[in-house]
């Protein structure tokens, strides 16, 4: 109910209709932001019958009785006052530099234009093509079995690396994973793992460590590999690289992804269509800017 096109929007799947409606919305939007209300010309304020009715209903909801004539007149006077001051404020351009107004209008506009039309029932051929296109997404993550020894720069200072290299030479001579516990520094990181998922390994050691680990050949001491905790010598005993999951197994996920993609594309297309109506000029700042616009 929250996702996917809503009832009136479902009727609008035809692209032609879609753009007609969009045009109407844009027209409505522009005329609404102009000085005149629909059905009223400059200098004329019309409080329509349905509007008066709505005021009366809202009053009744709130006070559990209909408004008296004087109360209704008061509300109408308030509505007129609001229109007069609103239009005068617009005429003075008071909406132009107001963050709150700008943000509200943007939200209102997005509210009415988003999710207008996209397909939610792809056929299998479409999904299969999408699955092939995004092969890297539908994989069983890699799994790793390894032991590690930490050499902590905090404890050892600059000699951590040399200590690790020396220990590596000794271990390689010893030809086995066993003596690990006598070397390196105490840490509360577990010292060995069996069949650990790559994602879990990343959660403990960070992604760079795991990427380096996956590059190793199993069955020998290697390293040192850096993590946020220090330098590690590692004995990779086994690794299963990520494998592609069959289409049948991930069909639903592919479908979700595909629909999601359609929705994103449709929403972006609406914006692009609008953008075409404008010539955008970005002028360089006069003084050098203080690092604006960087990613984060």
């Amino acid at each position, binding site marked *: 109910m929250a996702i996917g096109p809503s009832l009136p929007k479902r009727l609008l799947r035809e692209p032609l209709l879609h753009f007609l409606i969009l045009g109407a919305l844009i027209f409505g939007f522009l005329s609404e932001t102009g000085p005149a209300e629909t059905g009223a010309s400059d200098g004329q304020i019309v409080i329509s019958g349905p509007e008066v009715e709505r005021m009366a209903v*809202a009053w009744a909801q709130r006070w559990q009785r209909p408004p008296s004539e004087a109360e209704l007149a008061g509300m109408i006077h308030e509505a007129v006052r609001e229109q007069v001051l609103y239009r005068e404020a617009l005429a003075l351009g008071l909406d132009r530099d107001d*963050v709150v107004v700008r943000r509200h209008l943007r939200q209102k506009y997005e509210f009415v234009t988003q999710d207008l039309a996209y397909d939610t029932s792809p056929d299998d051929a479409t999904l299969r093509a999408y699955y092939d296109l995004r092969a890297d997404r539908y994989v069983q993550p890699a799994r790793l079995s390894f032991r590690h020894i930490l050499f902590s720069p905090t404890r050892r200072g600059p000699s951590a690396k040399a200590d690790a290299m020396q220990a590596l030479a000794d271990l390689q001579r010893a030809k086995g994973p066993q003596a690990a516990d*006598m070397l390196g520094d105490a840490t509360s990181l577990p010292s060995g793992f069996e069949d650990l998922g790559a994602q879990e390994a990343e959660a403990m050691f960070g992604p760079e460590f795991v990427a380096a680990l996956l590059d190793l050949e199993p069955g020998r001491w290697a390293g040192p590999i850096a993590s*946020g905790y220090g330098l590690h010598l590692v004995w990779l005993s086994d690794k299963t690289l990520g494998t592609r999951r069959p289409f049948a197994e991930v069909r*639903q996920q592919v479908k979700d992804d595909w629909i999601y993609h359609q929705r994103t594309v449709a929403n972006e297309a609406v914006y692009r269509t609008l953008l075409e109506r404008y010539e955008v000029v970005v002028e360089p700042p006069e003084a050098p800017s203080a690092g604006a616009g*960087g990613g984060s």
Partner: protein
Amino acid sequence: MRPSKFRTFVLAAIAVCPFAMPASAQQGIADPHGHDPADLDRLNQVAPYSPNAGRNFPDRPLFGETHLHTTLSFDAGTFGARLGPRDAYRFAKGEEIVSNTGQPVRLARPLDFTVVTDHSDNMGFFAEFSAGNPDILVNAQAKGWYDLMQSGKGAEAAVQIITSFSNGTFPTEIMSQPGTKLYRDTWKDIIAAAEEANAPGRFTALIGYEWTSQVGTGDNLHRNVIYRDGGDLAVQMDPMVTLPPHGSQDPVELWKWMGAYEQKTGGDVLAIAHNGNLSNGLMFPTIEQFGKPIDAGYVTERAKWERLYEITQTKGTGETHPNLSPNDEFADFEIWDKGNLTMTVAKTPEMLQHEYARSALLNGMILETRFGTNPYKFGLVGSTDSHLGFSSFEEDNFFGKTVSMEPDPERIGAPFVRTPVGTISEWEVGASGLAAVWATENTRASIFDAMERKETYATTGTRMTVRFFGGWDFEPEDGNTRRPAQTGYSKGVPMGGDLTNAPEGKAPSFLVAALKDPIGANLDRVQIIKGWIDAEGNPRESVHDVAWGDAGTRQPGADGKLPPVGSTVNVAEASYTNTIGDPELIAVWTDPDFDPTLKAFYYARVIEIPTPRWTAYDARYFGRTPADDVRMTITERAYTSPIWYTPGG
């Protein structure tokens, strides 16, 4: 982890091992500064063994969200959140999504679990209303709002809808409430989204909702209800609401609902309260509530159903307040103390002790003396309370709490709430927090059970690993082993546990081990906070630095105070370096002032070195110069569940 494969590994290891293991190796040998290579060959003859043998405790905590709203929450939907539970889970699993304002967004790392907790009152109304559900539009008022929205005045419609709801004039015949088809369908859809997303072992989607009790004009008594169960049980009862005729604002009625659910379905639920800081003195009552005295019934039920408290989130910190803890130099942290949730009633100092976790932990022990049960014996988690349809808690990736706060050049100077009582600015909203759970498996049952035994801790959004054990026999060497967890579990109880029956002449000792977030900032210090009730029955508290970074050059001064760790933050560049602090801190601490006749609790607080706050990333990205009072750095932290000492048995 797969136990069966472990066994194979261990057996294989033993098969090639001609000798028995030296006992000392199982304890873990500390060799921090070197080794004798000559020993290696000998060791290889005897040493093969798995350090993991018989290990039945988790290697790492699971990090997740227990408090997240989507478009199905009445307020979130009305104010522009369009993302639903499926988007929320997708995002939690590490996928990129497009935010409500059209901006691509993705977490740096996936979460391990998430609970979507939409407000139970009027749940799903807005999604159906905006979809033009004819059952709703038969109502004249709803039709009016709908037309307003269709004519492009969505924001105006939103304000009218919200106002009518908070004024109690919302048309009851179209409200989404238990028993109606709309409510049923919404609840089923929430459950279905969780069932689809739940992937045991990799990602857990727990079923839940928020019961949003608001007393007076907006005193926050909210609770999140979380299910251990799958959809087959959760679907059997509609959630508890606060509005009559089905609901109540009184937590006592929520607990009755929870009891009724468990009785009817055989399921299991728990409740987590949050934002006592916005309850104006009502969250942790000691005398009365709703005109009824706090009695044996209240304390028993509260202790039974509310075993966790959400201590940190976007709307401020709930640990303690500088007025309550004047000697705690880290108490003044992301405080929201201007008023209640709606900022309709201002805060007064006497409210504070009924709003914060530390004073509640203390008052709970006093109530325990009176009634036999401690109602405030809770563990700790953090979460976001995001109303975006996705969780946002990373400083360099913060999308705010509501759609109006999604990244925008103006937000750093915009008001979040403004009433005659006062203003809370958007910059005051925090990028916080996370729930860390020491669950043995990533499944609903395992996570829920860890929550019930309070083996949890809260962080303000970073993913540091914190282990905390209490016992009677921890020794300084235990802080220098290869396996502090093994030592911790075998010699003591983990966070959330109990100590009783103090051995003659012994004081409780604690093993605490903290690892920094693997891609985050170093640690400044580890503290243990002790609270106790003195012989006169008065609450007391003390803060102890037990381990700290840069210990080679940084020691407490003559006044016993540890000098600050310093700061490497470059605010203009929104950057820092890990050249101060330590990546890992471990310590054993024994209470120097222990009195075995007095009740006490102990919890650990781990503090990171200063890092840029989200406001610094924002200012840099948008090239803005924020006002002088905007905080630009933060010291992220973790709070563990306490370990309680109770005299006698």
